Structure formats: structure tokens, C-alpha cells
């Protein structure tokens, strides 16, 4: 009601004082926090996501032709990669690197690993094609396909980019697909926790280290008797 309105000025003044007080506390606090963050060396090899967003759940078809729901992998650590089976360089390198990680993990941790390879070329990559391709690198790895619209939605949700390159002149079915190459790690609670760049993937021990830190300190002490650094408070807070 307009008639009930009190003069605005004193209230604006009070608001200004509050804002100034907040700024006086928040700005130095932010600066201190950032400088602390810059000084402390991250224990993580991959890019650690403090937001720990819920990983986008999806249903696709696995390489045995069965429905595959991401949610059903809760309790495990999922390494998620996008690619296509006609990819001669990046995808085999990625899967070979992840196979090295799988083999290097302590047995107990191996049981908690699920490697999922989602094709971004669903027109050509049938479950049969994926089955002939993905388990070659490690028989526990799973290839996924689906209809192009679902694949596009999943790729978008994970920030994966892909684009068909122009086909060969003599064969329209002969084409490459340009694509982003990072591998995402989803923790046992279904949160997007880490991502690894393609050039980081050959660093097997470092990735194993991150994997074990995500699993927890009780498992982390089992690698060849070496004790790995425990997660920093920031990691615990984000959980």
C-alpha cells in the first residue's frame, strides 16, 4: 500500500551499511581463501569438481543388447569415455590407457571399476560392433549405443562435443567423427567428481591414485604398501 510506505532514505542507508559490512568481511575472506587454494597443491591429478554435480542418468543399450541404466552402477566408480569404433587413434589410445589403469588397481578396487564407452556414432556402432571392439581392450569394459537423439542428449549433459567430418568422396559411409576426448569419473554416490584430459591418460599411476582417493583411505593404503595422501578437507566438504 502506497500510503503505508515509510520514507525510503533511512532504509537505503541501513542497507548500504549492511552491504558494506558484508563486503568488508567477504572480500578479504575470499582473497585469503583464493590465496590459500593457490598455495596448497591439489592432491588430485585430474580436474577435481568441488561442485560434485549429480551425474546425468541415462538409459542406453549395452554391447550385449541389454538395457543399460547408469544409476545401476551406484556403489562403483565409473570412468566414462565417448568415442566411436572406426576411430583409429584417439579412442584406441584412450581405451588402452584405461585398460592399463584397470590392470594396475588392487584387485579389490578393480571390482569397483566400471569403464563405459559411449559411441557418438550410433548410426554405425551397433551393439555387435561395440562388442567386437570395447572388450578387446579389457573384457570388463562396456560399450553403449542408443538412438542418435538420446546419444546427443547424453553427450550434451556430459559436455562432450562431437561432429561428423565430411565423408570420403567414394563412400558416404566412410567418415570420421571429431570429438572431445576427456574421461569423466563418477563416484560411488553418482556424482561427477573428476575429469582427465586425453594427454593425462597415459599417467596410469596418477589416475590409479585419484581412483583410490575417491574410493576412500582404507583402500588407498593398499597399493604396493605405499600410503597415498588422504583427501583434503575441501574434498570431504564437497561430499
Amino acid at each position, binding site marked *: 500500500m502506497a500510503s503505508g510506505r515509510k520514507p525510503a532514505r533511512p532504509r537505503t542507508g541501513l542497507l548500504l551499511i549492511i552491504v558494506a559490512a558484508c563486503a568488508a568481511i567477504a572480500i578479504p575472506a575470499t582473497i585469503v581463501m583464493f590465496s590459500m587454494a593457490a598455495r596448497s597443491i591439489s592432491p588430485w591429478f585430474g580436474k577435481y569438481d568441488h561442485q560434485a554435480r549429480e551425474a546425468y542418468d541415462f538409459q542406453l543399450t549395452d554391447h550385449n543388447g541389454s538395457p543399460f541404466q547408469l544409476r545401476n552402477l551406484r556403489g562403483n566408480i565409473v570412468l566414462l569415455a565417448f568415442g566411436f*569404433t*572406426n576411430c*583409429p*587413434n*584417439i579412442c*584406441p*589410445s584412450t581405451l*588402452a590407457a584405461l585398460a592399463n589403469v584397470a590392470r594396475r588397481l588392487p584387485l579389490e578396487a578393480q571390482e569397483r571399476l566400471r569403464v563405459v564407452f559411449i559411441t557418438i556414432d550410433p548410426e554405425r556402432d551397433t551393439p555387435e*560392433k561395440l562388442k*567386437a*571392439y570395447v572388450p*578387446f581392450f579389457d573384457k570388463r569394459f562396456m560399450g553403449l549405443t542408443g538412438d542418435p537423439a538420446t546419444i546427443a542428449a547424453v553427450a550434451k549433459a556430459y*559436455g*562432450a*562435443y562431437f*561432429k561428423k*567430418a565430411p565423408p570420403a568422396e567414394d563412400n558416404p559411409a566412410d567418415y*570420421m567423427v*571429431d*570429438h*572431445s*576426448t*576427456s574421461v569423466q569419473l563418477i563416484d560411488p554416490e553418482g556424482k561427477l567428481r573428476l575429469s582427465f*584430459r*586425453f*594427454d593425462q591418460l597415459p599417467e596410469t599411476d596418477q589416475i590409479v591414485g585419484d581412483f583410490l582417493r575417491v574410493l576412500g583411505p582404507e583402500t588407498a593404503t593398499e597399493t604396493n604398501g605405499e600410503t597415498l595422501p588422504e583427501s583434503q578437507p575441501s574434498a570431504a566438504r564437497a561430499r
Partner: protein
Amino acid sequence: MKFLVAILAALSLSFAAHGADIEINDPWIRAVPPSSSATAGFFVIVNKSAAPISLVGAEAPISKDIRPMVTTKISAGGKDVMGMEFVDRLTVEAGKSLALVPGGDHLMFMKLADVPAAGSVVPVTLIFETPSGRKSLAIRAPVR
């Protein structure tokens, strides 16, 4: 004795090839699933000559279509996007070397007639263009 020395020499050079001016080190071919249509070969080209040389192609029993490729990397929405492009040549400047590596430049073996198994060795003849004409260099690339 001479024969033995020759064998030992051949063995020591088995995975490195020397032309007069071109040296190929650490060749290997990526083991891929038997259903694959393509794979990639990697090695280091050392150009010991005083002029640029270019890798323009290759011949091998596993594929009739072997071409050099480069991997392109662009940034799309803050993500590294990798793509591949055929090139007519991979040029190595005088006195320099060029490493063909996973995720980088490579020799692409397409329309594989035979998918080589891990542990096998593929004979490959690399074709270079040099100022004094085309030169072939035979290498043996283990599959792994």
C-alpha cells in the same frame, strides 16, 4: 663369425631403420580389435640431411591405403576437441625430428586387409620425398 656379427647387427637394428639421411626410431602399430577397419602407426623420423624431407605414404601387406594424418585440436566450449585430417605430407625440416605419437601425427592404415595381432611385426616401407627424389625406407613395426 662374419655371419654372426651380421645377425647381431641386424637384430640390434631390427626396430630402428637408417637410410643415409633418414632415421626411423621406435616404430610400433597400435593393436586394435580384429573387427577394426583402421589402425595407426607411430615412430620418430629423424632427418639428418641438410634439406627438408616429407613422409608422403607407405606400403605394407596389411593395407593398400596408408596415409599420413595429423590430429587437430580445437577448443569448443572450453573442451578440447580432437579431429583428424589427411595430409599429403608430413615434413621434417633439416636436422630436425618429428615424433608420430598417439593423439598426434600418425600414419593411418585404412581398409585393413589383415588386422595385425598384438605381438606380431609388420613390415612397412615408408616413402619419403627428398630434394633428390623419392626414397623408400623399410622398417619393421611391432604391434602392441
